[in-house]
């Protein structure tokens, strides 16, 4: 298909305290119906969206952390994390959730689509995208 566009969802904010992360996630879930090539990028405080073991029971917010793990089923192919942003917050890939992806027709599987990238690589990925949604 020649009309497949590269969609990139750029996430720069912490998951709770504001609605941006959840809104971004909802748009990804809805947008999945359009059969585009979808990637997510996590930069700055956005990396906190993927830190495992978050507990929102003391707050009024829904814990949507588990929802990220189903994104592979919604056709999301890549979840890029800016390595420098992660390191600046004292975090490593071990602190992040894993998201599996599987092609239901070919049964091709990827155990984890969460991938660390260098900042210049992140910039390149953004400029290679046809559409960038920034949250």
């Amino acid at each position, binding site marked *: 298909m020649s009309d497949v566009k590269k969609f990139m969802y750029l996430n720069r904010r912490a998951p709770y305290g504001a609605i941006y992360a959840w809104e971004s996630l*909802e748009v990804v*879930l*809805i947008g*999945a*119906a359009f059969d585009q090539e979808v990637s997510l990028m996590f930069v700055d405080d956005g990396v906190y969206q993927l830190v495992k073991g978050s507990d929102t029971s003391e707050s009024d917010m*829904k*814990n*949507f952390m*588990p*929802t990220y*793990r*189903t994104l592979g*089923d*919604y056709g999301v192919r890549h979840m890029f994390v800016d390595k420098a942003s992660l390191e600046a917050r004292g975090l490593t890939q071990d602190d992040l959730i894993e998201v599996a992806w599987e092609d*239901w027709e070919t049964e091709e599987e990827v155990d984890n689509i969460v991938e660390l990238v260098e900042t210049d690589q992140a910039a390149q990925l953004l400029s290679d995208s046809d559409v960038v949604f920034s949250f």
Partner: protein
Amino acid sequence: MGTITVDGKELEVDEEGYLANINDWVPGVAEVMAKEDELELTDEHWDIINFLREYYEEYQIAPAVRVLTKAVGKKLGKDKGNSKYLYGLFPYGPGKQACRYAGLPKPTGCV
């Protein structure tokens, strides 16, 4: 907001008939809703309802219908993972109707 009566208890539902509080759910909810729709629930219906509840438990969302279709095919067999089979069970749409019976919110992106 309306209510439905299940096992003698009044449970709140929203304007589209979805349970207001997922924690209110008991199997009787599906039975009562199905009766209103004049649908008899079979084991095949319960397979889908239980599947949806497990999916929600794990991912905290109601799946989009095409994700549901694929996941059902994977878990319950390819003969069940198609929209013809699912619409046969839930004529008002597997996403909407089955999620309602399962006490889940309306699937994200479903209008």
